[in-house]
Structures are given as C-alpha cells and as structure tokens.
C-alpha cells in the first residue's frame, strides 16, 4: 500500500517531466520526445525502405547489390552499434556538432529503413505473380507496374507490419539513454536520481507507460489486420458499400 501511494505521489510531482521533459525551459523530452523520435524514425525510414526494396527487387544488378549489402549490414549489427557509429562519425563527416536527438533520429532511420525494406520486399513478393504479368502484358514498365499495381496493394497489406515496426521503434528509442537523449527513459532516470530511494517505483511507472503505449498500438495493428483481411475478401470497399448491401439483400 505504501508503495502504491509512493507511485501516485511520484506521478503527481513529476507528470510534466514524464510528459515533455524540461520543456519549455529545456529541450523537449519525456513521452513526447519518445513519440516524436519514433514517428520521425519510421516516417523518414519508410520512403527510404520502399526505395531499398525496389532496388533489391530491381532487374538491375548495379542497383541491387549495393543496397542488398547495406541492408544486410544494417540488419546484422545491434542498433546500439549504429547509434555509436553515428554519434562519433556523423559530426566528423559533416563538420558540425550534432545533437543527441538528431543522432538518434539518424541511427533509427538507418536501422528501421533496413528492417522495413525487408517487410516491403516480403509484401511485394507475397502478391501473386499474375499481377506483375498482367501489368507488363498491358505495356507498363517495371517501375510503372510497381507504382500503379504492385505497391498500392503491397503497402496496404503491410499497414499492420508497419505499426508493429513502429512499436519496436518506440522500445528502441530507450537506447537514446546512452547518448543522453532526453526521452522517456532519460526522464525516469532523472527522477530516480533526484529521489534516490525509490528506484522500484520509478521504473515500475516507466514500464507501465511503455506497456500501455505499445499494447494500445499492438491492439490497433491487430484490429487493422482483420479489417484488411475483410477488405481483401472484397466485402469492404467503401466506395461500394451500398452496392454490397444491395447484393446481400438480394441473396
């Protein structure tokens, strides 16, 4: 019971720090920074991953091999390694200081683009071969077929996987802690350093927050998955819901 009241009072005293960090007196942090990092990471990685996937599936070897190599390496090392490389290398490469936040975004984009490109590639390859055949037979170029026929279907089917990847990204942002990015875990660390005596309570709150955010998103992905299955069965094209109902009424 004592522990529960401790938790409540920690939340009462620190909710703003957990939510937005030192903002507006310092950099944005807390849950807000975690979510912004994750959204930026995925949003920038996504278009890149589509390009990577198209390159690995392209008929042109000069495009295929380097990108496959890059994806292979990025998937084959721990994210922490990428973060450290970006942290030490990027300032040298561009000759300027790079904030922890930007470092983390760059590292996440590299890592997530490599992972997502495999998701996109699998999504493309899961479509029946007849789709590409039909598009080519009508005279579309390889890229035209991808753009108008293959990608719209593959990306739609991939929405749940992208959300899952987003959830992973949220968890991965915790690694920003090692380079002092003021995200949620960092905020919890600050609180713990201030209180000194209640690490269990503080990290319990932290775990609950991550769990609630990730669980909600995972549920969303599951719901979308069944919705997509339903759409794919042809029942749910919104443009023709009325027509569907008419047909259902007939039969």
């Amino acid at each position: 019971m004592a522990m529960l009241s401790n938790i409540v009072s920690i939340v009462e005293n620190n909710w703003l720090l957990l939510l937005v960090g030192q903002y507006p007196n310092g950099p944005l942090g807390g849950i807000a920074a975690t979510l912004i990092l994750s959204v930026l990471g995925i949003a920038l990685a996504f278009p890149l991953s589509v390009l990577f996937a198209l390159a690995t599936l392209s008929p042109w070897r000069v495009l295929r091999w380097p990108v496959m190599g890059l994806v292979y390496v990025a998937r084959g090392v721990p994210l922490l390694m990428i973060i450290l490389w970006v942290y030490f290398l990027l300032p040298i490469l561009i000759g300027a200081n790079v904030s922890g936040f930007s470092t983390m975004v760059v590292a996440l984009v590299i890592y997530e683009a490599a992972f997502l490109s495999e998701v996109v590639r699998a999504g493309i390859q899961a479509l029946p071969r007849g789709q590409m055949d039909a598009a080519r037979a009508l005279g579309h170029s390889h890229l035209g077929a991808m753009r108008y026929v293959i990608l719209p279907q593959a990306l739609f089917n991939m929405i749940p996987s992208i959300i899952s990847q987003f959830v992973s990204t949220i968890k991965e942002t915790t690694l920003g802690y090692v380079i002092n990015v003021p995200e949620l875990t960092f905020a919890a660390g600050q609180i713990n350093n201030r209180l000194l005596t209640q690490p269990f309570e503080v990290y319990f709150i932290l775990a609950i927050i991550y769990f609630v955010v990730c669980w909600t998103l995972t549920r969303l992905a599951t719901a979308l998955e069944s919705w997509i299955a339903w759409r794919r069965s042809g029942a749910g094209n919104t443009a023709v819901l009325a027509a569907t109902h008419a047909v259902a009424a007939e039969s």
Partner: protein
Amino acid sequence: MSNAAAPSAAPMIRFEGVNKFYGDLAALLDINAEVKKGEVVVVCGPSGSGKSTLIRTVNRLEEIHSGAVVFDGQNVHAKLGGSALNKLRSRIGFVFQSFNLFPHLSVLDNVMLSPIKVSGVGKTDARTRAMELLERVGLANKAQSFPAQLSGGQQQRVAIARALAMEPPAMLFDEPTSALDPEMVGEVLAVMRALARDGMTMMCVTHEMSFAREVADRVWFMDAGRILEVAAPGDFFRTPTHPRAQRFLTDLHAR
C-alpha cells in the same frame, strides 16, 4: 468460317524455329507456325505440352533460347530497348486463366488505368472508351464494383475489356475458361465469339472444343513442346492424323 473478315495472307504472329528449355526439359522444340491477320487459331494439347509457354513467348512474358517470334513485322525477342518492348506489349492483348484483375481498383479503373498511364490517353476519353467496352462485355452496370465482388465469369469479361482498351490488333487467351464454374463458361465464350466475328486476330489456348469447332480457322495440336498437327477444325476433329492427337481427342471425349 464464321469470320466476317477472311484471314488475309499477311502474318500477325510468326514463330520461326523457336526453342525453349527448362534445364534439360524442352518446353518448346523447333516451333514454326504463323497466325494470319484476322485468323482465329486454337492451340490444344495435353497438360504440360507447352501451350502456355508458347503463347507467353508472343509478348515475351517468357524468354526463348533461339529462334524468333515476329509480331506484326517486329521480332519480339530481338534486342529491344525497354520502352520498345513495352510499346510492343501494349499492342498484344493478353487474357490469363486466372483473370489477374487489379483487386485494389474498381472495374472501371482496371479498364482505364493502362490507356491513361501507358498510352497517355486523356481521362475523359479513357472513361468513355472504358464504358463502351464494359457495355460490350455486358458489365457496364458493374463499373463501380471491385473485382472481388464479381463472379469468375464477370471478372474474365472485365479482363477482356481491359485488354481491349489498349486497342490491340491481336488478342491472346491462355485457357480463359479453365478456372470458371461450368455455368460461367458460356458468357466468356460468347464475348470471344463476338470478338472473332468482328475480325479480331486471336490465338486461344483452350480445351473448349465446341468453341474451336465453331470459331477457329485452324487448330494447332501440341505435345511435348512440338506442334504436331495444324489443321482446319473440321478435319482435326473428324480425322486427326497424328496418333497423339487421336489419343488426346479420345481422352477428351471420355471425360
């Protein structure tokens, strides 16, 4: 014989010494044959005899190892730039056994997509033309539906309309009715009959012998990668010369 436009002498599709192998297996062996302009050719033969492979070489969905396939005077398998091949393909209508409609697009958009994106036709013109074609295959009322909401027969008729939208001088069909429930075969064959009557050059892989008898100018019988017999349908069905063809027809009747 039921063709209004009599086949003229000029070939639309010509196979010249075509060979294709899958490893040791000869999928096509020394194919020499031609489809004249306005002609309807039915290709038949046992499963695995190479019919699909043959018809797919015409628009180069399959590559060949030697020989040439000439479409309307152009060698499809020559060294072509990508855009030259795309242009050539857009002039060869192709209908698949499994329809292969684009499931994320409405019926109308399925028919309009390629004229707009490949041929650069304006949206309004493409729509008018697409509606005409859907009318022609009896599906104008389904323009706003999505493929999954249609029966197999309806999907295949949309696929035919989609191919016709590119205004091809010839149409290829690879077992267009094999994936259909029996009661839907008739509606697709009716569309194909009408096409033949209008003088379309057609190459059809099919086991619909009534269609062959009634519409085809010529039947090609294939077995083990070779064309063993080329004959008018009347002769082919009454007096097939090759023993393999005789056996094939007996098996077909026995089914």
